[in-house]
């Protein structure tokens, strides 16, 4: 492929598509994590009715393919606009998995730290905010980063409902200039760079966590 075509394509991908990917990913990470942590904390409590309802909700969200969820939100909810639909769907989908990660972390932490916080006069929210969550977030960071990778990859599927992020930019470029074998490889490269950074950070946390465990007396 001639150089000039290459440059045009890269411009399309990196200047038009990639910022949209970032925009979608960053906002969705924020909302998915907020909702996911909230749900995870609620999941760790012993409230029977709430647990049943949440179990069913989470079972449904995790059981539907992401693409189908996108279509559901797009056609069946009052949410309008491809970007908003993408954010909402990414949030709903990923918060379900984050909730399970956080819940597992809270249960793994055990009751004793909770008791210590309570004995100082903290209410449940204060204990969770000052004592439990800082430890759980640190401990589950590798899994949370893994979920972030899944979220970033999920932004690509949002191209299917028309959101013009990098994957869709690639499809547009392909329709104009051909060479899909090169274009999609280039797109894969961009995703690879983004996700590999996240996974590497995750491995760093895992190693740090193991060191601390060994250092405990």
């Amino acid at each position, binding site marked *: 492929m001639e150089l000039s075509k290459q440059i045009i394509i890269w411009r399309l991908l990196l200047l038009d598509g990639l910022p949209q990917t970032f925009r979608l990913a960053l906002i969705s990470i924020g909302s998915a994590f907020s909702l996911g942590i909230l749900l995870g904390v609620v999941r760790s409590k012993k409230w029977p009715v709430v647990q049943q309802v949440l179990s069913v909700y989470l*079972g449904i969200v995790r059981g*539907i*393919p992401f693409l189908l969820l996108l*279509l559901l939100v797009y056609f069946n909810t009052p949410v309008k606009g491809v970007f908003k639909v993408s954010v909402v769907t990414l949030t709903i989908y990923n918060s379900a998995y984050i909730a399970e990660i956080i819940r597992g972390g809270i249960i793994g932490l055990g009751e004793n730290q909770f008791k210590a916080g309570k004995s100082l006069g903290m209410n449940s929210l204060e204990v969770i905010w000052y004592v439990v969550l800082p430890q759980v977030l640190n401990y589950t960071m590798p899994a949370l980063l893994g979920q972030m990778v899944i979220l970033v990859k999920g932004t*690509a599927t949002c191209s*299917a409902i028309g959101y013009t992020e990098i994957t869709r930019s690639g499809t547009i470029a392909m329709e104009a200039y051909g060479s*899909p*074998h090169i274009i*999609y490889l280039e797109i894969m490269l961009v995703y690879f760079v983004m996700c590999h950074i996240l996974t590497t950070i995750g491995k760093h946390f895992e190693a740090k966590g193991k060191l601390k465990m060994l250092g405990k007396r």
Partner: protein
Amino acid sequence: MDFNPKLFFRFFPQLLEGYFFTLQYAFIGIVFSILLGILIGMVMCLKIPVVNTILRWYIDIFRETPLIVQMYLLYYGLPYVGVLLPPAVAGMLAIIFNESAFTAEIVRGGIESIGLGQKKAARSLGFSRIQILLTILFPQAMKSIYPSLAGQGSFILKDTSLLTLVTITELTSVSRYLNSRYLIPGTAFIGSAIFYVVTFWAIQGVVSILQKRQKWN
């Protein structure tokens, strides 16, 4: 969320047909990706210099780039380099390669988590590395990882819904057709969601039973 039970029953046969396609694709995907994943995982444990690096790249690339882009690459890109495959094959190859990378990691993790003592004992008895791998390490690893492998099944089931984006007929594509033809987004998408969720719950049930059995051991 306009779900019309009457319409659901009316279009049930079409949805069911799409569902059967989904099941077939899922089955093929599960069988091949698990077989390939086990193979790759085991070979990685042999730590052969060049091969290991290649496999490491394979795993990282397929896990850290979106499945949809991989599908587009095979579906649109292969014909450009002279490889003409039926759409279903291109789509399924993407799913198989993608999920085999995840499976390979599960298998590799399972095998490497088995203590060093076992390997040393086997070596001292005169076993070769491959023999150790196949007869001692792998069966033991299988005992601890088969719930995760079963869990892969639900991921592959959800992956099949992306096949609709490369013009393959399965459950999601049927629901999109029904929606665009009859303008019944509620019935079409919620209807297909029901199929997916019920199947997901069935797989989860199997995974739970397997996990409980594993805890007993």
